[in-house]
């Protein structure tokens, strides 16, 4: 794994909102095939980081490289085609559409049928394309075990199911890198276990690289290959789950334990 070029690299990313420094000179790399988690207290800048990668925010300083290409200024809507998919911390489904249609929107950049051919459904190949993609979407539906709600209107589903449908929609993009912003927040234990299993499976079986924000430390330590800790917009630690857990800064900032390592500015665990 060592020699492999990173799939994602943040280089000195800073982000300011007026006086608020959401991110301060954050650098890290995500390697192809890994599950990389970002943890940190509320307001630490985790979602802001994901927003910079997905294009929602433009970093005030620094660069973001995806597959070696600088995407700092790439339009948001073009990043799906590059291979970046995401889910949102606060649910962001298309509430009036069925589950199927929600997931089909995820295929948007893979479909070639424009509105003219769409209108003459039977004549211009639209039907063939729809059916072919529908089949792949059904595979995702099976994978995430949401067959029973595929015709349901997304807005009517339970919270846990909506989270799952959002994951399905992101997977439908066929992303190389999938960004998951608190995929298990607000779920009960069983739903969390299912979700953790899905994340591991899509990583191992489908080969998607995962960048995940999650608060549940048990899950994070269980399934992550590497972890980065943010606090007040700064990266305070990064490394394997064990290294991060052992880090004094982390204990102080995140786990609320007294500071044993005094004021040591060097990062103990490094990427």
């Amino acid at each position: 794994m060592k020699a492999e070029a990173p799939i994602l690299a943040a280089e000195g990313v800073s982000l300011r909102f007026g006086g608020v420094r959401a991110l301060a000179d954050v650098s890290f790399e995500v390697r192809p095939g890994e599950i990389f988690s970002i943890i940190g207290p509320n307001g630490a800048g985790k979602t802001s980081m994901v927003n910079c990668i997905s294009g929602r925010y433009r970093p005030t300083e620094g660069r973001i490289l995806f597959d070696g290409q600088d995407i700092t200024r790439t339009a948001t809507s073009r990043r799906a085609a590059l291979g970046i998919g995401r889910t949102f911390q606060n649910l962001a489904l298309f509430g009036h559409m069925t589950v199927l249609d929600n997931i089909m929107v995820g295929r948007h950049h893979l479909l070639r049928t424009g509105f003219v051919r769409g209108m003459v459904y039977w004549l211009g190949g639209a039907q063939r394309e729809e059916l072919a993609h529908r089949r792949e979407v059904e595979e995702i539906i099976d994978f995430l075990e949401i067959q029973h709600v595929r015709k349901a209107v997304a807005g009517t589903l339970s919270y846990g199911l909506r989270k799952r449908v959002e994951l399905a929609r992101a997977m439908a993009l066929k992303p190389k890198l999938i960004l998951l912003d608190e995929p298990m927040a607000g779920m009960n234990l069983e739903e969390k276990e299912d979700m953790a299993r899905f994340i591991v499976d899509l990583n191992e079986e489908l080969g998607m690289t995962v960048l995940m924000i999650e608060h549940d430390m048990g899950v994070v330590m269980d399934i992550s290959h590497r972890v980065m800790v943010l606090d007040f917009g700064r990266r305070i630690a990064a490394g394997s789950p064990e290294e991060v857990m052992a880090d004094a800064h982390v204990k102080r900032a995140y786990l609320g334990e007294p500071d044993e390592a005094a004021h040591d500015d060097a990062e103990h665990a490094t990427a």
Partner: protein
Amino acid sequence: MTSMTPAGDFRSSYRADTTIFPTRSSMMATIAGVALLCAAPLVFGRYELGLLITIGFSAIAALGLNILVGFTGQISIGHAAFFGFGAFASALLVEYHVPVPLAIWGAGLMTAVVGLVFGAPAARLKGLYLAIATLAAQFILEDFFARARWFSGGVAGRVTEPYELFGLRLDREETYFYVVLAHVVVMFLAAGNLMRTRDGRALIAVRDHYLSAEMMGVNLAYYRTLSFGIASFFAGVAGALYAHYLLFVSVEAFNILYSIQFLAMIIIGGLGSVMGSMMGAAFMVLLPEVVQAGADLLAGSAIDRTLRLGASISFLREMAIGAAIILFLIFEPDGLAHRWKMIKAYWKLYPFSH
């Protein structure tokens, strides 16, 4: 759905699953409805057929507006101006010896181009600002009609030719009815198809959650502008059908009140519902007829003598339209299409639904 299902089954089951109609019976009902309508000229007189023709082209225009407002979540209070543009454009094309059947589609395309131009600000504006921008489109186009004599015939208006196909003049209600019916079927199928394919889903995605739509690769500016183009195309075709029905087009018809009537059609019929556009158009065309019939019924009675219904009939019609909009907004905000669904669901479960 399990892995035991032979692969060949996927195709056929998904095909049945992705039809334009929600259920098989709704498809049969629609086909039966169109077949019944084909017999309308045998049953109805010219007046009733005229109403059906009016419902037909109004429904096409309403459907276009519904794609813009109901499906994409934008707003336009200038739809009648685009309808009018299509009417003039078709008449103009006919003057340059384009056959009417082609001129109607040509007018639709020309109107779509104009719609794209006026829709371009939609890529940036939202809500009230967009509403004002479309209001400006209404007034700019009305002003253009009044000034550009070469286009509209100025205050005198423009006379145009009837629909003619293979040497057959379809200029009477009995025959022109079929022309409108054919266009209605084509346009409604086109809209239904659009909404079950890539670009239609993108439009709805923009409405429901534009931030995540963008993340799915949907270019917001493109789709916001495109929906204006498509809405204007429908308005243009509808306007052209109107022109070759009346055979005379003049500026006054396409004012802001007419634009508001189109909005009323989709609110009453159901925002974001293809068939609702038809129901709303029928409602709005027939409402004045009902008011008139009511006034006729009361003619000579005490109510008539005190309120002088006959003299104030045009005022009563407009009041009825206003009242209908308000009542629907309060009591039936999801429109007739939704109510229709509920009624069907009720009858399906009939004995147990109490």
